[in-house]
């Protein structure tokens, strides 16, 4: 009985933070691609670069947009859960609006950079 509860809990936690895991994976891909390009795909000849010369650095925008979308998904789910309860939905809606704004700013910045 206890084991079942613990298993269910850890499954819920895994589901809840799946979006953070996805973000981490995206970041790892971004980092590895940057490393691969900077080492000329294996030939260890390193150059001095401007950080902004790396278009892949702009993948950071994508990483944060993915993270933002994940958080928005979590907030949207909790907003749907609150519909039946008496608790105020105002903070959740505020959170969703702010996250949307954040994602819009990031997309605008990414567009401007490219």
């Amino acid at each position, binding site marked *: 009985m206890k084991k079942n509860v613990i298993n269910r809990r850890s499954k819920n936690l895994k589901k809840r933070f799946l979006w953070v895991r996805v973000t*981490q994976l995206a970041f790892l891909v971004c*980092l590895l691609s940057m490393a691969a390009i*900077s080492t000329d795909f294996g030939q260890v000849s390193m150059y001095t670069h401007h950080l902004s010369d790396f278009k892949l650095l702009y993948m950071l925008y994508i*990483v944060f947009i993915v993270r933002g979308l994940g958080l928005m998904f979590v*907030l949207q789910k*909790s907003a749907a859960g609150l519909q039946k309860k008496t608790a105020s939905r105002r903070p959740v809606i505020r*959170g969703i609006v*702010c996250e949307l704004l954040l994602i819009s700013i990031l997309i605008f910045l990414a567009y401007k950079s490219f």
Partner: protein
Amino acid sequence: MIFLSLGLLVGFIGSLLGIGGGVVLVPYLHYVAGLTFREAIAVSLFAIVCTSLVASLKRMRESEMDFTSLPVFEISMLLGGLTGGYLGAFVSDFVLRIVFSVVLFFTATMMIFRGGLMIFFRPRKNKNRRNADNMTTKTAAVSVLLFFIGTIASMTGLGGGVLIVPTLVLVAGYSMRKASATSLYIMGVMAASALLSQWGSVELTMADFFLLLGGIFCGAPLGFSLADKVSALLLRRMFAVLLFFVSIKTIWQTLGQAL
């Protein structure tokens, strides 16, 4: 190899003392590795992004995060990061060094005391947490403060954790654990926006850059494993003395060059 060992040392000290990478990284890269001040700040900002993205999951699981306020704080930090990024790239080296030294001196002072900034203020017990209006006012106040913290942090390449955590505890009424997790989560977007606004124009040798990051990621678990076995407060105080020395040296050098 120098950069790899530097990264190992920085990751080890950072996780052992529970402080962000910036405090260790910027002085070390500038004075030991011989990077210019701006290069050191750019590397530090990238390291903050890495730490925030990699370590935040562990902290988020341990503490009950308030997801509804996170986006508001993130926007403040993003705008602060952008402002600080532009300011940092356009202000003179003199101003940058002075701001860095002052922030470093403040950080060192906070490390001397057990409770950091909290010993000067008593966190108010939040009885009516459910009052939505009260929470909105608090969130707005924290957001304004976070904007300024983000500006300073992105200018100097320091994570700002030493300022963010007390702000969240004292103004928003968060617990220490929750504040620490939130701080780790929101500082990533600040560092990324600063890096992508103007600090990206800094020139770096990418090999050194990646070796350093690799070292940080390998050194951090070593520090975490040792953290429970040694007296953290004593180590923090010893390290604070070193930071005092670095900040005074930076001010001395900067004023010496200016005069």
